[in-house]
């Protein structure tokens, strides 16, 4: 059965079309990589699936419920409780330390302070950035911020994880460490993962790959321009 689904999702920014009718089905516990050239609409799709952006047309359903019509408050509650979102550009809270950033979603969900801090430290440690626990984002490297944001997305052990280029700022080994933890957690907890990446080796961690091209899913198998002869097969 389909767990998470997009049906004909359309979304534009002013007059710039970003998604032109995307249909996508994700099964529970599946890890799906969303690939495609830069600017093809991957982040926009991720944000629509995660209930951050509302599609202009089409629908997004999760466990059979249409979430695209939900109020902002309801969608934001969903993101706090069931979904984990890892943004392409970190988006840590600048005034908080790494450990406070990671503990934040737990605190918002009602976890006690001490317990939240312990969990935060565990995840920072797993992702190899325990040393920045008490440092604010402004004093971290890009890669440290990214791993800290990953810890924040994983700490709640969400049912669905949306990760946008989670290794974009990392060297191969650090990236691998992050992906290994992400995939192990997903397999253990049966977490569904939507992983946006442009790197084949990162897509290799997924069960399946969906390629976008100019705001639509490319079914040709290689993202080739549909205007070429034999483009529709």
């Amino acid at each position, binding site marked *: 059965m389909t767990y998470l689904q997009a049906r004909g999702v359309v979304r534009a920014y002013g007059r710039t079309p970003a998604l032109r009718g995307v249909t996508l089905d994700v099964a529970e516990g599946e890890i799906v990589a969303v690939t495609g*050239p830069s600017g093809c609409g991957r982040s926009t799709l991720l944000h629509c699936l995660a209930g951050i952006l509302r599609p202009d047309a089409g629908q997004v359903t999760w466990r059979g419920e249409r979430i695209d019509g939900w109020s902002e408050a309801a969608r934001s509650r969903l993101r706090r409780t069931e979904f984990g979102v890892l943004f392409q550009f970190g988006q840590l809270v600048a005034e908080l330390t790494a450990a406070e950033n990671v503990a934040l979603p737990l605190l918002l969900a009602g976890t006690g302070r001490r317990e939240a801090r312990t969990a935060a430290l565990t995840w920072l440690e797993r992702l190899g950035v325990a040393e920045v626990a008490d440092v604010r984002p402004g004093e971290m490297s890009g890669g440290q911020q990214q791993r800290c944001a990953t810890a924040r997305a994983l700490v709640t052990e969400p049912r669905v994880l949306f990760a946008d280029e989670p290794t974009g700022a990392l060297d191969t080994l650090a990236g691998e460490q992050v992906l290994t933890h992400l995939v192990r957690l997903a397999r253990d907890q049966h977490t569904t993962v939507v992983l946006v990446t442009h790197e084949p080796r990162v897509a290799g961690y997924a069960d399946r790959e969906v390629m976008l091209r100019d705001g639509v899913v490319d079914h040709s198998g290689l993202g080739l321009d549909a205007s070429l002869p034999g483009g529709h097969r």
Partner: protein
Amino acid sequence: MTRVSTSHVLLGLLATGPRHGYELKRAHDERLPRARPLAFGQVYATLARLHRDGLVAPAGQERDGGPDRTAYALTGEGPHALDRWLATVEPPMPYVASTLFAKVVVALLVADVDRARDYLIAQRRAHTARLRELTAVKTAPTASLDDVLAADFAIAHLDADLRWLHTTLDRVADWHREVHS
């Protein structure tokens, strides 16, 4: 890609102490887990050559004395040959020789964009499947360091091939558009 020098790999394995041919084969396949397994015949032929060149010598023999009964050890010259090999920098990609590359060129040569494209799509699928398989090998909690190193190597190359496949498709598309506009 240059061929692996089996003789130097065997010298390296013998550097840790004398071994029989069958032990060498086992050690080889274990240390280079994703390499093509060595055939016994190849091991004995290589040992014979190394013996002739004075780099290894029999180190004690059991009674019936066939080649499979003989343990070999490095001679005094052995470690020097090994050192020279290890100190030699490999020419980085002296030739662009890959069947993958050749097939795309030939497909375009016979002036068939569809052909090139179909081939690239099928190849991409096969590459991706292999990449996933090796990623699974590598992330398995039971993977040994040798497994990880071998998988890393293959993954890095598959990743490079896949990037090249993507770029090539885009270039072919651009080229086709130019020619036909």
